[in-house]
């Protein structure tokens, strides 16, 4: 990836992170930690990779994205808003009665959301269904999905993983946002999912491990997934929960807590400072 492209993606990611803070602090609730850890992947997908058109969000030939870790809706919404699917100002209505920005993604209410999610393990299964539809129809769209590492506790993830490899869905690329933390603490202590890579390899997936905050690595992995025939790809993306906000980084306590007004101001100031430094 050339430096100019990378710089633009970094700037966009910073703006998306600011939108996440705005959304959760306005709502007084929500999930900033896992939204911030996933932001660079969302940025890459929606601003560099995916064939989507904000003017025609239901285009049958579009690439699709399923946020299987649906609680990270602030990350997806901020990405979609910055991409032009709806006004960035609307993020301030997140989780409020007057707004269409549901706590968890709703495909009926929010332009650009491809699948309603929130109950963990179901989004990846729906993504498998979408990829199967693409194969049935001989369409060239790709399906992307993002899973939480804690989400791997759900048995349905593995049912879906088995089906994706059984039906050779090489048009499906999924990410595990591997920030190592779930609500109750370290994933290895709550319910150890390791060895994650070995598990997906055993389930018949092509597995790639990357740094979730390195755009070159994200691009390389996504391209390798596209070149891989006959099997789906799981990109295990090692990330930092709360990435970009100093006091949230690597803190499980910021999984599902909104910053107070002064905390939000500090977070926005940090992100703005970073943006200006680019």
């Amino acid at each position, binding site marked *: 990836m050339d430096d100019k492209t990378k710089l633009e993606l970094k700037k966009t990611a910073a703006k998306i992170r600011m939108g996440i803070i705005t959304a959760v602090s306005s709502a007084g609730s929500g999930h900033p930690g896992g939204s911030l850890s996933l932001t660079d992947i969302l940025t890459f997908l929606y601003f560099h990779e995916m064939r989507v058109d904000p003017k025609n969000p239901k285009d*049958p030939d579009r690439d699709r994205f*399923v946020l299987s870790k649906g609680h990270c809706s602030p990350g997806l919404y901020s990405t979609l808003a910055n991409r032009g699917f709806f006004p960035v100002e609307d993020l301030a209505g997140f989780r409020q009665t007057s707004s269409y920005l549901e706590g968890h993604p*709703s*495909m*009926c209410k929010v332009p650009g959301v*491809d*699948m*309603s*999610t*929130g*109950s963990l*393990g*179901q*989004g990846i*299964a*729906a*993504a*498998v*269904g*979408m*990829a*199967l*539809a*693409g194969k*049935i*129809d001989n369409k060239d769209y790709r399906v992307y999905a993002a899973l939480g590492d804690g989400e791997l506790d759900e048995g*349905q993830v593995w*049912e*879906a993983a*088995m*089906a994706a490899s*059984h*039906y050779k869905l090489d048009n499906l690329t999924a990410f595990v946002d591997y920030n190592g933390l779930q609500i109750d603490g370290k994933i290895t202590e709550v319910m150890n999912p390791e060895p994650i890579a070995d598990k997906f390899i055993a389930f018949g997936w092509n597995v790639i491990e990357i740094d979730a905050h390195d755009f070159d690595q994200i691009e390389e992995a996504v391209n390798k997934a596209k070149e891989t025939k006959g099997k789906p790809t799981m990109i295990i993306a090692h990330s930092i929960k709360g990435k970009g906000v100093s006091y949230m980084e690597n803190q499980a306590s910021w999984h599902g807590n909104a910053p107070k007004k002064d905390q939000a101001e500090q977070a926005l100031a940090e992100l703005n400072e970073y943006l200006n430094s680019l």
Partner: protein
Amino acid sequence: MSEKIATRVAYGKALAEIGKNENIIVLDADLSKSTKTDFFQKQYPERHFNIGIAEGNMMAMAAGLASCGKTVFASTFAVFAAGRAYDSVRNSIGYPHLNVKIGATHAGITIGEDGASHQMLEDIALMRAIPGMTVISPADAVSTAALVKLAAEMYGPVYLRLGRLDVPVIYEDGAQFQIGKGVQLKDGNDLTIIASGFMLDPAIKAAEMLKEEGISARVIDIHTIKPIDSDIIIKAAKETGAIITCEEHNIFGGLGSAVSEVVVKNYPVPMEMVGLEDTFGESGKPYELVEKYGLTPENIFKKSKILLDRKNK
């Protein structure tokens, strides 16, 4: 009337008939030979997908397929479709109102020998509580075939409740049905027997028993439990003044509850309910269980007499 066909068989045959529509995709969870989606599979193997024994995954995959424009029929036993997979049905199909038809076979105690673990008696309650879900419980092969086709033509999620047991064919070939419209099979003015699914045949027989005593019973088939045909129920309440419901389901949350919701809001009359009395079933031959749990014309007859006593007090 002597011919007997299981509604699951009528479902499988209907699917194979409408399968020429290339937009239809059928999913099954390792029960194709029991749910009878194998009829479709034989004709259209490229559009029949086995998801294995993973019902929740099947429902969410169905949602993904439907989001890409497919009309998806997802089949398994009712106990797994509505029970085990409930969360996937609710969140991935119901909430986004996707075009998935759930073909739930082997409902009720008439599955027989498999016993209580497999005898789904709560599915109507669960499914009709999901906003926007259409719930259909056909009584015979003719109505099943017609309603499967109508379900495929309408947009939105549908729960089709089907049985394992061979049951009498009640309707004439070519009979017309509408989703959401009940069918009056017999007129009467002393009371109304409202039935769905397996219980329609015993309901008709009970009406004949009542007739021998000079009691005129109206019989209505409520094949669509949601949206329910309020008009036909209110009319029955006004004209007959007493209603008895008959269902192969827990009396809590099923047809009896749905009918009583309409009755108490619009024209309260005395009601009785025949169904499973808040109990699980057990293993046994289907018709022995039907006897034991009172899903018989005799029990409908007996409760109808109690109902008439209440009405005439």
